């Protein structure tokens, strides 16, 4: 039974694994010297939606996870636990929007104490999002008593634009930022079976930005 469907399963897996091309651009802009000692940690936060930002929670999770593993990994404090411990000072309304605001916040003894106890060295602010736009084509699917199928061709543009700003808590200083722009066109041709060729710009932006963040922080 398994042997009979083996080739079909393999073909399906191969089809699902197909990716469309993505173009990438990563730039970093360094203002100061960075570095991280053993035991020091970073926290990754999305910039406030009160400032018009809508970075996806999944993207923040993805960057946090990538930074905490692999070569040059560092200790990442989970975002929610950080925000809950320092509640309400890192909520979208109250979070500092610049290093001057951070300096004011650190004047609160308990806030400074908790940050110091947890050995948090950097705050990484993420800004930006992934958009799908400029699509075209058409596709129709039908289902009958003998089976189902689709016919047509559709495409759309995926753009992921993100920026990470790195604040050094110890020096209360903005150390620089990294911008990542990934774009690609996803295709969906269908002759009976639709074959998705997705441009996974968000996944690639997450990987690219995380790798660059490691390089940036380790100096």
């Amino acid at each position, binding site marked *: 039974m398994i042997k009979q469907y083996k080739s079909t399963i393999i073909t399906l897996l191969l089809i699902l694994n197909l990716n469309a091309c993505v173009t990438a651009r990563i730039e970093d802009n360094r203002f100061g010297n960075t570095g991280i000692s053993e035991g020091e940690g970073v926290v990754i936060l999305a910039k406030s939606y009160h400032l018009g930002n809508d970075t996806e929670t*999944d993207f923040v999770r993805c960057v946090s996870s990538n930074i905490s593993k692999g070569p040059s990994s560092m200790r990442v404090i989970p975002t929610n636990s950080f925000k*809950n*411990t320092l*509640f*309400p000072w890192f*909520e979208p309304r*109250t979070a500092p929007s610049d290093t001057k605001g951070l300096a004011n916040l650190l004047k609160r003894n308990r*806030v400074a104490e*908790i940050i110091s106890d947890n050995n948090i060295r950097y705050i990484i602010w993420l800004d930006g999002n992934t958009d799908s736009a400029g699509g075209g084509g058409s596709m129709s699917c039908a289902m009958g008593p003998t089976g189902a199928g689709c016919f047509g061709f559709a495409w759309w543009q995926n753009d992921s634009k993100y920026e990470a700003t790195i604040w050094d808590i110890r020096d209360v200083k903005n150390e620089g930022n990294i911008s990542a722009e990934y774009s690609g066109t996803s295709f969906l041709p269908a002759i009976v079976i639709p074959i998705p060729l997705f441009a996974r710009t968000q996944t690639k932006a997450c990987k690219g930005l995380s790798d660059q963040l490691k390089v940036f922080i380790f100096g």
Partner: protein
Amino acid sequence: MKKIYCLLSLFFLTSIINCSSQVNIKDPGIPNLLVTQLPYHVAIIYPKNFENFTHEEKVIGRKSWKIDFTRSNKLLFNKIFSSFFSGITVLDEADSTSTLEFDLVIKPSIDAIEFSVPEQSQDETFSVWIRYRIKIFDNNGIEIINWPISSYGKASTSTFADEQDLANAAVLAMRDAAALIILQIEKSKKITNIISSMNRQQPL
């Protein structure tokens, strides 16, 4: 066989006519607030609907949504005020005459709730706006503060979890309300001024 067809048709029909969603928020999970506690004992009087607050709205041309806040608003305000004041006592509206023993009496209420779903906002987010009202009285029953607190929460959509996403946006709006109330209390000198003047008037 006929039975299976009937059941399948019934399932298909119910999935088509299922035009409403309900969201339950049992506990917003508001953490302890990192604020300096004031050494005052306050009474909180909640409106009756705080025990079981629900908000229902039909999105034009789409399904209707019901947010059941259950006791979560009570939990939110208990957490805020117990973090900010050294003592809180929750009173029934019927007991509101016996407030002389407290430094302040706080009466929170909800003025309005609104929300938007991705079909309305044309983006992949759920948003919730809650307008609370906080009235604070001195122990003579004189209103000293009447603040509208307009809070906002926004959550991005995830696959097959619309109800959970709307609940997340509502919880974020409640957390935003907590942040706003703390900012207002810290900014306002009225509370500390009034309590210190009350203490001065008390005979030694």
